[in-house]
């Protein structure tokens, strides 16, 4: 009897987990599928399955509405931010967590305080203070500066925590082998920190990939648009154009989900060892 109850409980549990999984996947799959349905067909039965596929809306948003630029811009901004931010984060975290100096905690606290700032209120002063740089390199390139700076608090938090968990014996061994401080950094500490690097990479990539407000203010030229901006433009005065919206959302969502699925093992390992150590 007990076994029956145990089994029933187990299968009920799996069933509930399954329902939750479907409620997560279904809307996303629906987005992608609906974007390639015939618009009229779609409006008659929005949640049904397609009879035939119609990719024309992709062509339309791709060429007429500059989504091709948006995809490229989002990709460029995200990638550059991730790379530069990693270099800055790794060096700073090394200095804070492995080197010995009096104000390391103060500097860490200074970085972490950034997590509390309500971003929108600082946009206009930020734009004004970056104006000299914008005049020279243009708003799209300038936008990298706040993007990179914005990734620093959480990245330094995660990587510092991870680096702190590396045993000192590893360092000692390296020094005995004749490493200088730079070799210690890039030959020992960085390779050991790779799981945390994966975590930070995906967080930062998604952060920039999905960022809306700074992009809205900085990127006024059509050719500078990013995906979150492109997505919203189809909600206008006469209601939302669903086919176009869903196609653009699909173009934005597929790469980020793929990146996550690619890096997920590492991501969770990095979070495990680093991000949340109380």
């Amino acid at each position, binding site marked *: 009897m007990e076994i029956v109850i145990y089994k029933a409980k187990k299968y009920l549990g799996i069933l509930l987990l399954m329902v939750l999984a479907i*409620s*997560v996947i279904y809307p996303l799959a629906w987005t992608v599928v609906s974007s390639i349905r015939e618009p009229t067909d779609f409006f008659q039965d929005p*949640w049904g399955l397609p009879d035939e596929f119609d990719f024309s809306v992709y062509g339309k948003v791709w060429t007429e509405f500059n989504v091709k630029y948006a995809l490229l811009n989002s990709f460029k901004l995200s990638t550059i931010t991730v790379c530069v931010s990693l270099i800055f984060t790794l060096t700073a975290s090394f200095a804070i967590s492995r080197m010995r100096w009096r104000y390391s905690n103060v500097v860490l606290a200074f970085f972490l305080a950034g997590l509390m700032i309500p971003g929108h209120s600082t946009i206009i002063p930020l734009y004004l203070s970056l104006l000299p740089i914008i005049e020279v390199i243009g708003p799209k390139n300038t936008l990298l500066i706040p993007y990179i700076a914005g990734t620093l608090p959480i990245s330094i938090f995660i990587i510092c925590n991870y680096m702190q968990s590396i045993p000192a014996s590893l360092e000692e061994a390296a020094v005995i082998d004749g490493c200088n401080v730079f070799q210690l950094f890039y030959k020992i500490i960085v390779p050991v920190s790779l799981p945390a690097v994966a975590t930070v990479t995906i967080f930062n990539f998604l952060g920039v990939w999905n960022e809306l407000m700074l992009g809205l203010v900085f990127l006024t030229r059509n050719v500078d648009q990013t995906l979150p901006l492109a997505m919203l433009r189809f909600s206008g005065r006469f209601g939302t154009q669903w086919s176009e919206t869903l196609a653009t959302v699909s173009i934005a969502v597929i790469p980020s989900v793929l990146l996550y699925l690619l890096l997920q093992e590492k991501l969770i390992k990095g979070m495990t060892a680093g991000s949340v150590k109380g």
Partner: protein
Amino acid sequence: MDKMLSNKLVILLFIAPALCLYALVVPYPLLKSIQYSFYQWNIVGVPKYVGLKNYIRLFTSDYVFVTALKNTALFTIGSIITQIPLAFILAVSLAKPTRLNKFFKSVYFIPCTISGAAVSLLWQFIYHPNMGILNSALNAIGLGSWTKTWLAEPKFALWAVVFSMAWQWFGYHMVIFITAMTSISPEIFEAAEVDGATGWKKIWYISYPLMKPFIKVSMILITTSSIKAFDNIYVLTGGGPANSSTVLALHMYNRAFRQLQFGYGAAIAVVLLVLCVVLTISLNKLFGTKNVDY
């Protein structure tokens, strides 16, 4: 080695790039916007110093501010109660790294990788009064009388947003909690089982106390992000109907950018900042900073 690791020049070399960039971009605009909170400024013209007038108006005659404050509180509490218990239960159920569990874990995390704008556009359709799946589903299971124009009714709009946020973020906190679970050594559980603890008792007396620091982190993350919440509400309801889902960040945006009262918006932002700091500190105090050790 000590000498090598305390070389001032090397420290400076390592810390300088990040610190300089950060100091250039973050503190100055923040200080500047605190300064603007004492000015009347329409963004394009010349700012006019008005002392505490913005704050006085904010606290004495701005009825939207009161609604926004109340909604922000509801939004934060709503997000905590819809996300943390679910995430906790899932973490407990999925802690064993079986294949099936791994699959569920990956799936639940997917919505976190999508932008707030995209999630909100999606939910706009789910909540659509005629075509949305929520009303269709209610009709299909014979609860047609429960159908609503979810985003257009003052009673439901805010909760509709809370729910869509929960859909997006429960997986994130679940991963944090699973991380915590795997860090508890199995010996503790074995010892507890010897003492006669089973099922929920085990969870309540062992997992929960050990996971408290992680729950704290989750609480702080949800609180600070809820207080600053903007994208989802902006896209999903725009704060409506009749301000019933307006929160502080949206009120700030409306004042600063739609009504061109940047100084006033900056004053709201200062209130936001203070709230974030105070709540983070209180949560830290509430949960204690000591880790529980066994």
